[in-house]
């Protein structure tokens, strides 16, 4: 086999060189990409996105439970039931604590002040 020196071929590449502006354009695109990656990205928060939806859903659930599922004996409603049961007693107690002046003012300010039937003299 003949001896042969690889170095005689040289370092020229057989490939066609890229276009003249290739490296400039590559650099511009790369720097733009890097700058873009540096920008703080908006982090999608499932909790944040669902908060309004969950709030509305919770409100609807409470309303539905109150309207359709509640029985006077239910724990949830028991408090309100007790309050409504004792409402007359509570009002009497409240009115009893007022002075005569306060009662006169309250009667004058009431929307029933001019009500004919409400103001019928008691026997």
């Amino acid at each position: 086999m003949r001896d042969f020196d690889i170095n005689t071929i040289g370092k020229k590449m057989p490939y066609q060189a890229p276009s003249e502006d290739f490296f400039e354009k590559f650099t511009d695109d790369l720097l733009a990409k890097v700058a873009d990656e540096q920008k703080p990205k908006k982090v999608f928060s499932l909790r944040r996105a669902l908060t309004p939806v969950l709030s509305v859903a919770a409100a609807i659930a409470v309303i539905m439970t109150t309207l359709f599922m509640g029985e006077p004996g239910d724990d949830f409603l028991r408090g309100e039931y007790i309050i409504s049961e004792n409402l007359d007693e509570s009002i009497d107690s409240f009115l009893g604590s007022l002075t005569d002046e306060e009662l006169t003012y309250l009667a004058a300010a009431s929307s029933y002040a001019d009500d004919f039937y409400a103001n019928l003299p008691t026997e």
Partner: protein
Amino acid sequence: MNEKEIIELLSNIATRNEGFRLLVTKFREPIYWHIRRLVVSHEDAEDVMQECFINVYKYIDNFKGESSLKTWIYKIATNEALRLCTKKQLDMDSYDQKSRLVDLFSSEKNIDFDSAEASLQRAILSLPEKQRVVFNLRYYEEMSYEQIAEVTGSSVATLKTNYHYASGKIKEYVLKNMEE
């Protein structure tokens, strides 16, 4: 601008982007050709080069100056190029022991396939991966064995052996082609 000045700019957050621009400008052409010699196609070379420089930017804080900036970038570029070769299965075909890179090279446009340069390139592309990398870094980039060791992580003795085998195979290949 030399490596030291670029490293100083890169190490400061305020001047990092300017340092990176200078780094890309300095290394883009040699890195492109190094990658092109490994992956053959221009499009793949462009993709790998972009990935390489993005990794340089991303991991610049990991660069501790234990090697030169040049060999560190070449290491990233080489790894990315070889990763693409593996992904595209461009290396040795286990059936006929022929590199698909040679076929890819033969399908390139605007190449004078009768030229000595083309013959040399075909010979290099038919080498096993390690020998191909070592030969390219030594022959085209004119790196010392110590620098190639920084790029490849191999010992100098192994690299010398690889280069010796590669040169022998290339001579044989080119001479055979010249005689045909």
